[in-house]
């Protein structure tokens, strides 16, 4: 098998106003079958996708936010969140859902999937990818 490529999914949209967030999540779940080195980036309004306390019952649409917590089962364990995007929207790290994964190589120890980075670190991480998919 050829060496795994570095795939980055960039999420810049809020979850329910458009289909982008759900589409991105579905592509990530499908793409996970290909065993690549996958990362997700949440910048701009994309940080709203992983806000805690989402409840869509009155809206009559599916609340897909719990699915981000399943990403670890799919081997997707690097979710980069931009600190400036949070701050610009009056959010802190505590306003986001806790998302963890179980590290198979470390006796299934639970580890955080969310990686908080500043804009410069985010830009550098983006520049190190083989493929960037934007939503």
């Amino acid at each position, binding site marked *: 098998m050829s060496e795994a490529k570095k795939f980055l999914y960039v999420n810049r949209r809020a979850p329910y106003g458009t289909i982008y967030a759900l589409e991105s999540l579905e592509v990530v*779940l499908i793409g996970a*079958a290909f065993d690549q080195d996958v990362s997700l980036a949440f910048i701009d309004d994309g940080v709203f996708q992983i806000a805690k306390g989402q409840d869509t019952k009155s809206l009559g649409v599916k609340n897909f936010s719990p699915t981000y917590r*399943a990403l670890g089962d799919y081997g997707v364990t690097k979710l980069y969140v931009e600190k400036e995007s949070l701050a610009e929207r009056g959010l802190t790290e505590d306003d986001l859902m806790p998302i963890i994964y179980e590290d198979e190589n470390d006796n299934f120890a639970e580890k955080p999937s969310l990686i908080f980075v500043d804009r410069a670190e985010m830009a550098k991480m983006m520049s190190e990818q083989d493929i960037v998919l934007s939503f």
Partner: protein
Amino acid sequence: MAYEVNGTTVEHDEEGYLTDINEWNEAIALEIAKGQDLEMNEERWEVVNFLRNYYDEYQVAPAIRVLTKALAKTMGPEKGNNKYLYELFPYGPAKQACMIAGLPKPTGCI
């Protein structure tokens, strides 16, 4: 298209997956299983219930390799493997077990 169970009708899509997951109950599960020529024994219920719990927690039907890994972790390697699951659900655990569990077809399942 619909299943007829105890005088009520429950809509399904062209493949047999329930249109509305909230309409599921055990009687419907038995009816779907019958259509798949499967008898619902304890082992099959165990997988179906596991899938329902997974969906309830994460709002997604797990891909097959996610299912086997999760089963292996909670129920041991003798149940968390493809051979065991395909013996229970010969046409694919994703296809048959998810359908019986009332879940949508797993994302990425072909």
